């Protein structure tokens, strides 16, 4: 796979170390989630990759070229923290300025405004927009130059549920077009829906970088229910396939051991042989949120 971005030993020290020696690669066409609690160095990392913050040490390569110059930035679309536009100018004029900087023809302006549903408001000044509209205009602006890579830093921050859904739909559409996306968010269910890969930051350290599935070695868990939960519990404990078997209200949760691999039907068959018939059986994967929390906890 072609590497769009390769980061090597990137470090930034303000008064304390904010980003500590992180390395990761971004491959073309994938959607990456940059995860981490507030203050874990996500925005600083983006700032360095977008040339607004000078790194203390380390290198990175965009499209195989070292560092970030204006030409590279023209292939990237980015939204950082909050939508920034000239408040006294109309949406259209603001986008003209961006188009001028990126060397994009003005004809793209109506196209991107259409994509984010702001075409009717293009003559209105930016300061009259709601936060959701501002954020959508920011997305329109980042799409102006048909970017190869899209960087989104907390794109749904501060939006109401409707706004979040709108932004999520827009991002979903963009992802389908094969644009490489790097998205930072602390809304994990959001990342889970769209990301194939994650980079997890904690206190400036990259504690994981890779596919979402490989984040923890955890194989998920089964949710089971039978008429006689006590005998089911006993049978599951005897099987030795699980790290823990717990009663959780009406159902029993059995966490699969790392070295075991069992399918739902396999388990069902085994239990039937033991004379236990299930009224409910579901194999569940650990949510990204749980995986993330586990990962962050384990590195203490």
């Amino acid at each position, binding site marked *: 796979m072609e590497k769009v971005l390769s980061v090597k030993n990137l470090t930034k020290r303000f008064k304390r170390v904010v980003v500590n020696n992180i390395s990761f690669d971004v491959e073309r066409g994938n959607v990456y989630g940059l995860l981490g609690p507030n203050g874990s160095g996500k925005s600083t990392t983006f700032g360095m990759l977008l040339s607004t913050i000078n790194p203390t040490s380390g290198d990175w390569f965009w499209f195989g070229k070292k560092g970030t110059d204006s030409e590279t930035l023209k292939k990237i679309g980015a939204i950082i923290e909050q939508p920034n536009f000239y408040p006294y100018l109309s949406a259209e004029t603001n986008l003209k300025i961006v188009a001028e*900087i990126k060397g994009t023809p003005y004809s793209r302006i109506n196209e991107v405004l259409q994509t984010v549903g702001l075409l009717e408001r293009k003559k209105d000044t930016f300061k009259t927009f709601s936060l959701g509209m501002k954020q959508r205009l920011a997305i329109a602006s980042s799409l102006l130059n048909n970017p190869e890579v899209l960087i989104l830093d907390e794109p749904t921050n501060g939006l109401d549920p409707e706004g979040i859904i709108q932004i999520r739909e827009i991002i979903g559409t963009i992802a389908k077009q094969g644009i490489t996306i790097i998205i930072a968010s602390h809304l994990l269910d959001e990342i889970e829906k769209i990301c194939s890969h994650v980079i997890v930051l904690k206190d400036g350290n990259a504690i994981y970088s890779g596919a979402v599935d490989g984040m923890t070695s955890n194989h998920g868990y089964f949710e089971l229910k039978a008429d006689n939960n006590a005998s089911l519990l006993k049978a599951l404990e005897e099987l030795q396939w699980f790290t823990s078997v717990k009663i959780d209200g009406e159902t029993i949760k059995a966490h699969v051991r790392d070295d075991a691999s069992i399918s739902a039907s396999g388990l069902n068959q085994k239990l039937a042989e033991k004379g236990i018939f299930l009224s409910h059986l579901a194999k569940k994967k650990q949510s990204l949120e749980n995986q993330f929390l586990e990962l962050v906890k384990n590195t203490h």
Partner: protein
Amino acid sequence: MMKLLKLEYYKNLNYRPFKVFTILYFAILIALLFIGLADLKLFGNPINLKEQGMYDFPGIWNFTTWTVALLKIFLGLIIVFSISQEFSNRMFKQNTIDGLSREEFIGSKLITITIFTVISTVLVFCITLFLGKSYSTVTDSEMVFKEIFFIGNYFVKLFSFFCFLMFLSILLRKSVFVFLAFFVIWVGEAVIGGIEAYSKLTGMQGAQRNEVLQNEFFFSKLFPLESMSSLIPNPMLRLNMAKMMGLKYEFTYPTESLIACLVWCAIFIIGSYWILKKRDW
């Protein structure tokens, strides 16, 4: 070049301070240039600047450039406001992310500064020529163009002044701080200049004093605001000097001030670039 010009055009055209101060500038500028035609009352005595010879070549060049230069603060305000809003609206950061280099950013601001300076210079030149042709008692071409270098000095003076404000705006990023810093530097230069003059002249009398003033080199003359103001001396000195001493007013071309201004311009431009490059946004 066209790209940077377009950027500045879009950014400034609908910017309210830009409209307000541009209109104010031109209104006051034109009014001020024609002020000499009116009869003024100064300390109870009616004074008509025209009759005092203010509109006579070659002195008129000195008179108009000095008078109009007082108004440069209006254009300066536009520059301070429009540059500091780039930072308060986080637009410098956004422009950078969109792919505008630091060089291009400084370049676009220098284009605005140059345009302001050129327009103002051309305007002063045309109005002076018009006023002089209409009211000067001397009109032979040698006298007309004898002190035309004041127009050149005016250009340098405005350009350095705007570069100075650009540098302060980029350094401090808030217009209030820029005005405060400007005031402090203004007062500071006067105080240091005063101290230097006092230490060099203390205990001296009449002729000796004048000789030191004429020949000694004053470091405070090289300060940015002082060197800018030395480019065009106060024209009132001409009248007063001539009257009081019965001497012909001798103007020596302020070469060292001109060099100082050009050096300051370079320092301000390079300094601005350096700040944009080194700071984290």
